[in-house]
């Protein structure tokens, strides 16, 4: 039997710390389709993105997620990536001392591909989005502008060729030119590679170029309204309150939730640490 090709989210519930955020999300993304998930602050958009990729601190409490028949929730993050899922982060992490190139090389090795030859791919991908190839060998995201970080995300997506891409606010921090380059690259990926896109966004700017097949409105941890690209236009014009009221929900009831601090200091400085605290024991 041929596996049905679809990223399928069914009845997904999740929490961060003690707070339930997702209350049963249902979504299906098929190859080549563009889906937009829009919603007010605190609606659970970012939680949905992170849960799909298995970020520590986000706990699934029910439901299922399958990628072309693979149970994503049963496998670790890196295997989800290997299975064909890509998550573009809203705030791409800075990784001092590690180049984008070396990350892609390790990812290639992990799927049994050669770790050589991808540099040409990265250089070509950089050119496609009007990005300087120097970013390929620089420490990943360190001291880059918000827009450069987002282009780095696209660069990696282009090299990794995922089946489905979840884009968490890819349009935030981008200037008009960068937004156009990124949207165009995504558009091409859907057409050339059959990439399925789940674009999580606040605004409809991204959707002016990257035309969505479906728009889903997430509020209070559930999809509350769905429609075609005309829904995005309505949201732009009327705001969430009107659209959601029509669907019988009030917008923005849920407080913004911050993921739990799982550690205090990373490799970088910790400006918030208490300078008078006892030395480490």
């Amino acid at each position, binding site marked *: 039997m041929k596996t049905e090709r679809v990223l399928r989210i069914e009845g997904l519930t999740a929490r961060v710390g003690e707070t339930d955020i997702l209350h049963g999300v249902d979504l299906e993304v098929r190859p080549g389709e563009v889906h937009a998930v829009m919603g007010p602050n605190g609606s659970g958009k970012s939680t949905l993105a992170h849960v799909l990729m298995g970020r520590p601190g986000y706990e699934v409490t029910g439901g299922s997620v399958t990628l072309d028949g693979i149970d994503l929730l049963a496998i670790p993050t890196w295997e989800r*990536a290997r299975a064909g899922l890509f998550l573009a982060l809203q705030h791409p992490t800075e990784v001092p001392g590690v180049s984008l190139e070396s990350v892609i090389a390790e*990812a290639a090795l992990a799927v049994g591909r050669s770790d050589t030859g991808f540099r040409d791919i990265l250089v070509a991908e950089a050119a496609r989005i009007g990005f300087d190839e120097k970013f390929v060998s620089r420490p990943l995201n360190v001291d880059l502008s918000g827009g450069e970080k987002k282009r780095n995300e696209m660069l990696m997506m282009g090299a990794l060729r995922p089946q489905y891409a979840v884009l968490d606010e890819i349009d935030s921090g981008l200037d008009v030119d960068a937004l156009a380059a990124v949207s165009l690259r995504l558009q091409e990926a859907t057409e050339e590679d059959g990439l399925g896109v789940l674009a999580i966004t606040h605004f409809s700017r991204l959707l002016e170029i990257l035309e969505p097949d479906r728009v889903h409105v997430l509020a209070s941890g559930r999809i509350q309204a769905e429609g075609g690209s005309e829904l995005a236009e309505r949201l732009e014009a009327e705001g969430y309150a009107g659209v959601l009221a029509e669907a019988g929900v009030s917008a923005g009831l849920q407080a913004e939730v911050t993921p739990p601090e799982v550690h205090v200091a990373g490799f970088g400085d910790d400006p918030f640490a208490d300078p008078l605290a006892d030395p*480490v024991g």
Partner: protein
Amino acid sequence: MSAGLPGPDWLASIRRLTVDGLDGVAHPDTDEEVWRYSRIGEVDLDQYSPLKRQRGSDTVVQRDLSAYGEMAGVVVVRNGWVTEVTSSSDSVKAGVYVGPVGNTSDGEALFGAAAEEPADLYGHLNRAFGPEPVAVVVPDGVRLETPIVVVVLTDADRAAVFPRVLVRCGEDAAATVVELHTSTEVDSLVVPVLEATVGRGGYLRHGLVQELGSRVFQLGHQAFRVDQAGRIDAFVAGLGGDYARTRTDCRLVGRGAEGRLAAAYFGERAQTLDFRTFQDHAAPDTRSELLFKGALDGASRSIYTGLIRVRPEAVRTVAHQTNRNVKLSLDAWAESVPNLEIETDDVVCSHASTVSPVDEDQRFFLESRGVPTVAAERLLLEGFFEDVAAEAPHPAVADALRQALADRLDRRDVAHREVGAVAPEAESISGAGTEVPS
């Protein structure tokens, strides 16, 4: 006691005086701040014998130094004795001296030039029992392009070994001196002392690659003294030993002197790597930068305590101190204690210190790109050490560090495969961070 050791009369007299005074020198105690957290209490001096003569055959020490390319000089010190000296004809022509301190007329002036007083009992013992200090003299105005390499080997068991290296980098001179400290799998006590002075406008780059055997106790001291507009870059790769302590004193005694101290360390098993630093600003317009970074695996421990001292005369001092530690296992432990002692206004000083597991966000980010957990941590650790590796005084030193890290990470990978586990989940942090501009 130290009679019979080689060297000129002045050296014999220093030894005699030191031996006579030993009774009045107390054994270090962990109650002293500079020995706090140390394993000094485990040292039983009766377990070790100072060597009265060079033992064993005169077999040339096999060591591949090809990575250093052309060298201005090579010295091999075995169990404290100089066993090989080679100088390039160019460096001889330029008046550079590399060899036993007794064979140069400058010797007496070199001894004690940076460490006027022994730092502790072990400094006294080095003075009393060090058989043949090495001198490296780069005359005023001589700028060496190629490095001088000093191999310090210990292969005597149950021995107390006292190597000493004395470096003088003259006025407007420039030199790179690399010490490679190694041992066979002996159970010995190694007490190395380095004294280095940098003359006006001179620039010394010093590297220490410490790859002692896993049973060695090392109690080391480095003393740097930098004159006006001179500069020292000192680098340590702390890798071997059961307990390996390195105390570094960097004294900036002339206006505009600069000191850059960097160290990378990686603990495995139950070893302890112990670093004590003193950035001593004793003149105006002096500048010091310190970056010490370490990773601790297994049940290993590290200690970093550092003091920035700005004396009253050292106005317009700029001094920074950063110590970062990554804990790779739940049993690993890192102590990090930065200190400031500032006796004047008009200074810019900062210190920062962290102890933390591998950054979970960074690991997730790499994993989300399809990099398996162990490979992701490996990339992060290699990246963690990149900025400090860039401080190495010679590419071969940076390569030696990277290779040593790769070997340790390989062992770590194997261990994880055998256990079938990956790194521990980020626990609640046992770290403190400070960033105090003054």
